[in-house]
């Protein structure tokens, strides 16, 4: 048993990968919670997918992936802003058209037979190939994100609780959403090496969405989301090691499975309550209702 647990850790690649994933779990537990509470999950997915052509071009040109990803993000943002100006076109439609187009271009470039092998990894990432530089970048993004969110916590609560009324408390929603968007772009850049353009969202949104189902306060929700992300990362790595499946995809699958299980349990409990369940299953605070 101990052998079973220890033998993956004898590989330096696995240890590095776990380090990277645990850093990303911090982002999932902090930034991810605000992304979910502010309803920015769709934006998160759009950012991650829209930057793919930039990543591919960076890999082809031999410049750092983060630089390419940043370029890709800027192009995607500009394109979305431009298409958003087309009259009578819903902004959501504009975003999905642009993002799908960019993803298509990126996949085309990445999977073309003439491009060198390994570019496919940009779609799904290669967590076993993270470098010291990647770990440093992710660590820096983690620290910056945690600091920024701690400073802005009160304002984010006000904005999330009542976005339209936040202005009367001197906390306009626009500025806070802009900060979240910048942090999200940084987190996406940091996570793309490990998880690729398609799986980044699973890590940033999945654990927080699962925690949302069970937690009734923001603080516990952050801890729960971080723990789900960390446990899913470790479980995914072991799954990948023994089942010989892709590391990033295994982690994403465990995260998705956790969400499905908690959602099922949540629905079952809610159904039991609606049927007049009392005692343990009675909703908290029900006796307070007038």
């Amino acid at each position, binding site marked *: 048993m101990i052998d079973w647990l220890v033998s993956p850790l004898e590989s330096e690649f696995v240890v590095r990968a776990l380090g990277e994933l645990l850093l990303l779990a911090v982002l999932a537990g902090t930034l991810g919670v605000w992304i979910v509470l502010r309803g920015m999950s769709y934006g998160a997915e759009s950012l991650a997918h829209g930057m793919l052509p930039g990543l591919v071009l960076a890999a082809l040109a031999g410049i750092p992936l983060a630089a390419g990803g940043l370029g890709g993000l800027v192009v995607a943002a500009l394109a979305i802003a431009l298409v958003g100006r087309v009259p009578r076109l819903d902004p959501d439609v504009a975003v999905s058209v642009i993002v799908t187009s960019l993803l298509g271009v990126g996949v085309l470039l990445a999977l073309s037979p003439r491009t060198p092998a390994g570019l496919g990894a940009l779609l799904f990432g290669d967590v076993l190939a993270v470098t010291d530089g990647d770990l440093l970048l992710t660590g820096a993004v983690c620290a910056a994100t945690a600091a920024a969110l701690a400073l802005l916590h009160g304002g984010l609560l006000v904005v999330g609780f009542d976005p339209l009324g936040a202005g009367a408390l001197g906390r306009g929603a626009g500025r806070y959403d802009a900060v979240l968007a910048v942090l999200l772009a940084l987190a996406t850049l940091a996570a793309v090496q490990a998880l690729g353009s398609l799986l980044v969202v699973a890590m940033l949104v999945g654990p927080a969405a699962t925690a949302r189902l069970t937690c009734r306060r923001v603080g516990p929700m952050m801890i729960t989301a971080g723990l789900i992300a960390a446990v899913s990362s470790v479980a995914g790595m072991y799954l990948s090691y023994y089942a010989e499946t892709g590391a990033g995809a295994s982690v994403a699958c465990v995260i998705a499975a956790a969400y499905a299980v908690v959602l099922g349990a949540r629905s079952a409990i809610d159904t039991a309550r609606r049927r007049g369940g009392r005692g343990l299953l009675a909703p908290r605070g029900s006796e*307070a209702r007038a």
Partner: protein
Amino acid sequence: MIDARATAEQRTYERTVLVDADALAATYPGARVPALSSVTFRVHSGERVAVLGPNGGGKSTLFRILTGELGSSYGTLELPRGRVALVPQTDRSRLDFPVSALDVALMGAVARLPWYRRPARSDRELARLSLARVGLAGEAGTSFGDLSGGQRQRVLVARALVQDARLLALDEPFSGLDTPSAELLEELLADLAAEGRGVLMATHDLEQAWAADLVLCLNRVQLAFGTPATALTREVIERTYGSAIVPIDGSRAVLPPHHHGADQSEPNPRGGFYRGGRAR
């Protein structure tokens, strides 16, 4: 119901001016005509003012000017005792948002701190005291969404108290409340006025306007300001509501407003129609 005049005579606080608005007007960015103009009124500590008007008549615009969210485009506004705390309608906030009643009350402290400062222990203590002040000491740990509509409204009043505001602006605080909750809230507002705060209350309800110390009638411009007896003339009421006054059962009645679409599903606790001057 508490008689406003009786409490006014018993007051022990110093009577000071809380708001002094002169020829105030405001225009939203991009709009050519002002949303509200010619607003001239003065509120002293201890006064309860009903702000009467139809939807789009400028009640919310006035509140946004008073909280500093919207700048005035004309006229002067003096707030000698600081900004005004807004008490919004409870159905505007997200009931599924993971916060407790205490968390919501504490947001009042966030409002008066700079963006990088977190509420201190003294702020938490003030938030607890404010919850106790509105009669919800036992609900500090309850999720906001689990409270009744009246309790939520009182938590938002507690939040305004934590903001340390001398003047409270309430946006239709009685809409959707059942009678016991409405009476609790009415008592609370009378108490707050009696301790020297000013209370502005946006309403469609003529009966509530009759119960206030002062009435401010708005329909894109100020139509009247004064005691209910002087301000609520038939002409002013008709100009406030436009053509919405119809005769019912031989007496005048104002049709209930179809507000935000949501109120249509919630029956008015006071009987369905806001009857002008029924109690007089």
